[in-house]
């Protein structure tokens, strides 16, 4: 599927592919998916959950016989990445929930990924073993030591095929560098360093060094009483290893250049949109808080998600975004209720497609939204078990704001705010998307003609 070809066709149609996870009755809170990420080729899809587990799905090879059937994603490896910990000094429990997973680009047969909870980042190596050595001299087949007196001949051990085994091993543990909760990790394009960001600080790590990190951003005020802003997300530029951005709870984005100084407290660029006076309310700051920031694949744009909108910014223009998309503006009049039930603090993520032409983000009621930047068309789809027949085409959904509700529409007051799509991922080169709905992972792909 050539990225970009969809712009020549009519509205893309999305079909159900697969759903992973238990049906509601068996679900526990530990099963709630907290992060989703494709690797750089799209061959692997990783999820992290509240219970600290990582599940990796692998796309099966497309069979030559069934050209029209896209490869399915099946479980490749499951492992416990983080365990609950107790900080005895502060009498605090550290949650094992996986906040983010980031893949490293593949450099050999093994796969590497970073996974993080609130305090500790870990580098995992996922590798296959499909051969095992047989014919040891000093050990028998069960591994027991042989009595040297019984050995009369010597042989060379040989590698024999075995059932494929996928093993995940923790190769590095990057701990004790964050006082506050880690919200982001980002692998640098130099493939040697990565950064981890918490509420007030950003640290730069070298993959090889676990007992030391460099602090590159620190916004902790001298007096905590002056604290009015926290860091909400951070990401490295996809090509320029010296550049990164971080977003704040006040709706601003700062772009920093690490060549300018060791501590990047002074930004190179500052992106902020002036407040719209007609939309001002007590909740203005909360809804302007940015929950996610992502560079486009090209590196020319950044996309930010705040409570009600997704914005695209040109790196060369700091005073306002070039595009603003309304995700669920019908919630603007409900902000008081959403403040009351804390939904206003939900952190939605956003993603680009491979060609940077379409952006996607989640909403409530298991709805998610896609915006085509070229045609300016948008669509609302739903991740639900009801639309789960193989290759069933997803029907666009619509929220009715007031007045007469049409047959297929749903009214704002009927939306289920406990069903939120916070995490989504888009295959790097194909129109395959992964949508996390509480404890279920949905995989959708566009219709193959």
């Amino acid at each position, binding site marked *: 599927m050539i990225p970009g070809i969809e712009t020549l066709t009519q509205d893309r149609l999305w079909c159900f592919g697969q759903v992973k996870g238990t049906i509601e009755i068996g679900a526990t809170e530990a099963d709630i998916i907290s992060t989703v990420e494709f690797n750089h080729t799209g061959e692997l899809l990783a999820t992290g959950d509240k219970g600290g587990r990582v599940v990796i799905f692998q796309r099966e090879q497309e069979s030559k016989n069934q050209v029209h059937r896209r490869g399915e994603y099946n479980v490749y490896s499951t492992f416990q990445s983080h365990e609950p910990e107790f900080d005895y*000094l502060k009498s*605090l429990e550290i949650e094992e929930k996986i906040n983010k997973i980031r893949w490293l680009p593949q450099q050999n047969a093994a796969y590497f990924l970073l996974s993080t909870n609130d305090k500790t980042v870990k580098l995992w190596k996922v590798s296959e073993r499909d051969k095992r050595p047989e014919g040891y001299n000093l050990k028998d087949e069960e591994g027991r030591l042989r009595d040297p007196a019984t050995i009369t001949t010597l042989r060379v051990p040989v590698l024999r095929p075995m059932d494929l085994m996928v093993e995940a091993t923790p190769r590095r543990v990057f701990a004790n560098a964050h006082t506050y909760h880690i919200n982001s990790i980002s692998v640098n394009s130099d493939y040697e360093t990565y950064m981890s960001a918490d509420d007030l600080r950003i640290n730069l790590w070298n993959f090889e060094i676990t007992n030391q990190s460099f602090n590159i951003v620190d916004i902790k005020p001298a007096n905590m009483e002056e604290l009015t802003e926290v860091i909400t997300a951070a990401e490295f530029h996809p090509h320029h290893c010296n550049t990164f951005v971080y977003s704040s709870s006040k709706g601003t984005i700062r772009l920093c250049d690490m060549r300018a100084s060791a501590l990047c407290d002074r930004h190179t660029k500052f992106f902020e949109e002036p407040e719209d006076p007609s939309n001002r309310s*007590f909740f203005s700051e909360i809804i302007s808080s940015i929950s996610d920031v992502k560079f486009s694949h090209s590196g020319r744009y950044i996309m930010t998600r705040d409570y009600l909108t997704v914005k695209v910014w040109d790196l060369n223009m700091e005073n306002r975004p070039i595009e603003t998309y309304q995700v669920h503006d019908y919630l603007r009049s409900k902000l008081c209720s959403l403040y009351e039930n804390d939904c206003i*603090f939900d952190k939605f993520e956003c993603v680009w497609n491979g060609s940077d032409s379409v952006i996607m983000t989640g909403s409530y009621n298991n709805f998610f939204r896609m915006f085509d930047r070229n045609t300016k068309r948008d669509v609302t789809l739903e991740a639900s078990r009801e639309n789960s027949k193989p290759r069933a085409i997803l029907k666009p959904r619509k929220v009715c704001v007031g007045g007469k509700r049409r047959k297929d529409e749903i009214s704002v*007051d009927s939306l289920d705010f406990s069903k939120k799509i916070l995490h989504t991922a888009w295959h790097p080169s194909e129109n395959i998307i992964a949508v996390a709905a509480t404890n279920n992972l949905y995989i959708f792909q566009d219709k193959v003609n």
Partner: protein
Amino acid sequence: MLSKGLKRKREEEEEQQEEEALAVDTWWLDSDHPAVAPAPPAVASSSLFDLSVLKLHHSLRQSEPDLRHLVLVVNTLRRIQASMVPTAVLPPVPSLPAAPGMADNLLASSDAALSASMASLLEDLSHIEGLSQAPQPLAEEGPQGRPIGGPPPSLGSLDLLDPATGCLLDDGLEGLFEDIDTSMYDSDLWAPASEGLKPGPEGGPGEDAPELKETELDYLMDVLVGTQALERPPGPGR
């Protein structure tokens, strides 16, 4: 999240006045849509200020507060508080020309009190995190409400000081505000009101919730002070 409701005894007149005040403040609501959608499991308090204070309290109760949530709630609370100041000038006792000025003082001191308490709580957070050096601010304030040596022993944060002389205003003026419900300012975030401040008749029903919270807050303060003693310098990760 479920918030515990604040029980308040209110007289009808005050309720009306507060509703009027709220109406003035509701410019932020979109006129086309219902102001507040039918809310999920109820929060008893009716004003945004109370809700925010509850959220702040709830957030601080967590073993490790979500800093983003905390900062956003505090900032929102400051905004709400800032907008409430003009409405309090509505004199409860219109016949006394001095009344608006006194009301200003009341709110100014509570504003300072709120800022001070929020400041101290954020300061406490930094103590927990072990990265702030001076224990003095905490020691000076002490467990909330308990007097520490030097400063005037009964100087709760809501005691009114005459700006000119720095002396406590006499009880005669306190009597002016007896019919005003000050329970929202008596929240346990800051010093429990001294006996003379809380209007007598309203002492009853409001006590249960604040009493419970005060115990918990004292416990929290003890833990903070105790935790502080155990702290060590930051680990090798920095």
